[in-house]
């Protein structure tokens, strides 16, 4: 079943067509990678999915409901979480608090004035947060200041913040950018596990082909704002059009 359906999306910035007539269907429980040379419109597309940008035309349906015109927090509440290219975490807060916030967001759904409530009464959420921290093997950093974490740990923390919300769709913007090979492999394993154990659909934007081919079940190639081809990893590897799009870039 299709969980995400993008139909005929166009987005222009001034004279530049960032996206033109993008169609994309993501099946539930799969890992779907979007690849393409720089400036192909990958990030623009992602921003259209989470409410940061509004497409000029077209439709984006998540679970048969339109996400267009909704605010980022509303889209998150529908079940879409996003991991940013540079980890976006709450630097001034502790690791545990970083996880608690999405827990509250998930449970309360919207603003609640819990100004006179206490953490001591939130044992359930704390247990849940501790469990997820154990899953990403950060339990011993529970009370650390998030800003003091290493970049890899920040990334894992951000991932944990998304996972604790049990999203139905996880959008990842270059999750291994700037990582060492060992860290990259750990991240791949983590993502594989998330996908299989938690049954979370994932859309990944990635430059690292090693990551893409280890994870993705479907791959869409974007070039100059238009999907070039969509296929399985094996077929993509041998596709001459894709090679052309990439060779064009790598020759520069």
């Amino acid at each position: 079943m299709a969980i995400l359906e993008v139909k005929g999306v166009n987005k222009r910035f001034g004279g530049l067509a960032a996206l033109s007539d993008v169609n994309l269907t993501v099946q539930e429980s799969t890992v779907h990678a979007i690849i393409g040379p720089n400036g192909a419109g990958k990030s623009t597309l992602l921003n259209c999915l989470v409410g940061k940008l509004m497409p000029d035309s077209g439709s984006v349906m998540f679970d048969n409901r339109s996400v267009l015109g909704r605010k980022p927090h509303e889209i998150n509440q529908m079940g879409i979480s996003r991991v940013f290219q540079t980890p976006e975490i709450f630097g001034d807060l502790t690791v545990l608090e970083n996880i608690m916030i999405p827990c509250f967001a998930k449970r309360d759904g919207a603003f609640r004035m819990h100004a006179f409530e206490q953490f001591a009464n939130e044992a359930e959420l704390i247990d849940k947060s501790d469990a997820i921290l154990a899953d990403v093997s950060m339990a011993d950093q529970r009370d650390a200041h998030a800003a003091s974490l290493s970049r890899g740990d920040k990334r894992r923390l951000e991932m944990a913040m998304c996972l604790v919300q049990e999203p139905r769709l996880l959008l990842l913007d270059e999750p291994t950018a700037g990582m060492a090979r060992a860290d990259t492999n750990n991240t791949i394993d983590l993502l594989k596990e998330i996908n299989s154990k938690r049954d979370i659909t994932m859309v990944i934007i990635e430059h690292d082909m090693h990551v893409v081919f280890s994870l993705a079940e479907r791959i869409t190639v974007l070039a100059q704002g238009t999907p070039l081809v969509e296929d399985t990893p094996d077929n993509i590897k041998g596709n001459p059009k894709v090679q052309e799009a990439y060779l064009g870039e790598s020759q520069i």
Partner: protein
Amino acid sequence: MLGLNKNDTTLFVVIIILTILAPFLLNPFPTESTLAQFNAGYPDLMEKFVVFGIFAIGFNILFGLTGYLSFGHAAFLGVGSYSAVWIYKLFTYNVIPALILAVIVSGIFAILIGYVSLRRSGIYFSILTLAFAQMSFALAYSVLSNPKFNLTNGETGLQIYANDLQLFHRESLPNFPHIFGLSMGSTYKLGVGPWEFQFNVAYYFCALMMIASFYFAIRLFRSPFGMMLRAIKSNQQRLNYTGLNSRPYMLAAFVVSGMYAGLAGGLLAVTDPLAGAERMQWTASGEVVLMTILGGTGTLIGPVLGAGFIKYFENIFSKINDQVLHQWFTFLPDGIEDFLVAIVHPFIGKGWHLTLGILFMLVVIFLPGGLVEGGQRIARIARRLMNRDKAADAANVSAE
């Protein structure tokens, strides 16, 4: 205790003890001694300590937790005062309804101003709140003070006249703000040897309010709501992508903070039943910013310390004049004495604001954590020195 952790409980108890014993603690010098001018244990000043303490605690809930710098908080202070005085004028000198109305009206005011101002963040928010505060000042000073519709009594300030309605006022009740008949002005004086201590009803009433405000602030700081506000300061975008709209949190913080200011404004009218527009001027807003920064932004105790510090030195510094200075430096040779007096002269008396401005700049530049951070640094250095002494002792012992 009371849902506070151990450290907070200690802090809270210390605050309670300090406020209760303030008339003693702030009056260390005998009445007749030359140092008596440094005493702060008289009702007027002590009331200012606690009232502005409340104001600063409230401001810190907004600025300290969310990082949104409001330059218009004095507007809420003024609104609180006006509301309280109107209760006096129309109904009764009893302070309870006056304070309730002060808090409610300033809360409503905060909702209106907050709703518009919070559409922007960062510097735009500061500028907007500043503009609103100046507008409120102009409204109070002139617009809402005309023969057809006189809400604020303009330049003179709103005060109580003999022909005011005062519906529930009775002959038997004091002609001054009171709490169920106990006048806020009544003071019990206790003479102990050369000392004289004053226990004033209004002070203790305000102190009680400050203790309650402080307690609520601790709870708020430690609550999930407080965590959300810190999250906004840390990374507002992440919060939005985490499924929570930051705006209602901001508005709630702004309104709570405005209600604190309203309470403080109401209490100003408890100690002295009048309300003037100058209370709303943006320099007054600047003052609460100064208090909070000076004491320590984002800390619980900082704003109270800052408020006390500024109000104390405002009173003391502005009282010192050249004559006093000459007395101090009298042990020096004449030339040096005159020279020193000339140097210090610009900073005292009416020059107090210059001192304040310099102090403020120094704190922002060198000590962003304010007095609290300063204290922590000193404590750390002291501890290190002590450890070194111990280590040296240990080394000596082993050497022997």
